[in-house]
């Protein structure tokens, strides 16, 4: 059982790291601000979710788990809203979306 939890935790951690990496690659490689937003905000939120899930599996204390959950939810809500704000501001100021 313990081995199973450790394994799951490790897998989640590695998944989180991979998602962070893919977010950075997207941020660097995509052609304009909207595509970069799309790459970054989703993957990073998910990656943070994976990492805090991995830590929560190991924590063993309720308060700690609740705090991890709160932080993840906060980043989720804040990330989503700030992405939409940035995109909206960019459109309103006349940044043209990339077209092939």
């Amino acid at each position, binding site marked *: 059982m313990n081995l199973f939890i*450790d394994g799951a935790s*490790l897998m989640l*951690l590695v998944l*989180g*790291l991979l998602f*962070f*990496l893919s*977010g*950075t690659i997207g*941020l*660097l490689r995509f052609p304009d*601000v909207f595509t*970069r*937003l799309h790459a*970054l*905000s989703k993957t*990073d*939120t998910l*990656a*943070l979710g994976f*990492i*805090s899930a991995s*830590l929560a599996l*190991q*924590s063993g204390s309720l308060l*700690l788990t609740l*705090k*991890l959950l*709160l*932080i993840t939810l*906060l*980043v989720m809500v*804040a*990330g989503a*809203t*700030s*992405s939409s*704000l*940035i*995109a*909206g*501001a*960019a*459109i*309103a*100021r006349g*940044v043209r*979306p990339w077209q092939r």
Partner: protein
Amino acid sequence: MTDLYFYAALFLLANMLVGLARALRGPTMPDRMLSGELMGTTAVAVLLLLSVATDTEALIDVALIFALLSVLAVVTFVRRTWPEPGPPRGRRWP
């Protein structure tokens, strides 16, 4: 296991610094803000990992503050630094 968390934190730090290239290259202001977003989220993750690796629970509070205050920067940017000229009039985005 704690060593592993430290390596993970190191990986995320390196990842975050690579992402800084976007802040340098731009080209538009929102691009640079995005780089800041990446650093904010990654710093939260680094703090969570370090908190477990060094067994300091207070670092979670620092992560909480980062998560809360990252919104402030974006909202100030959108409402004060780079505000829209007004409601879009007849401009339809394709």
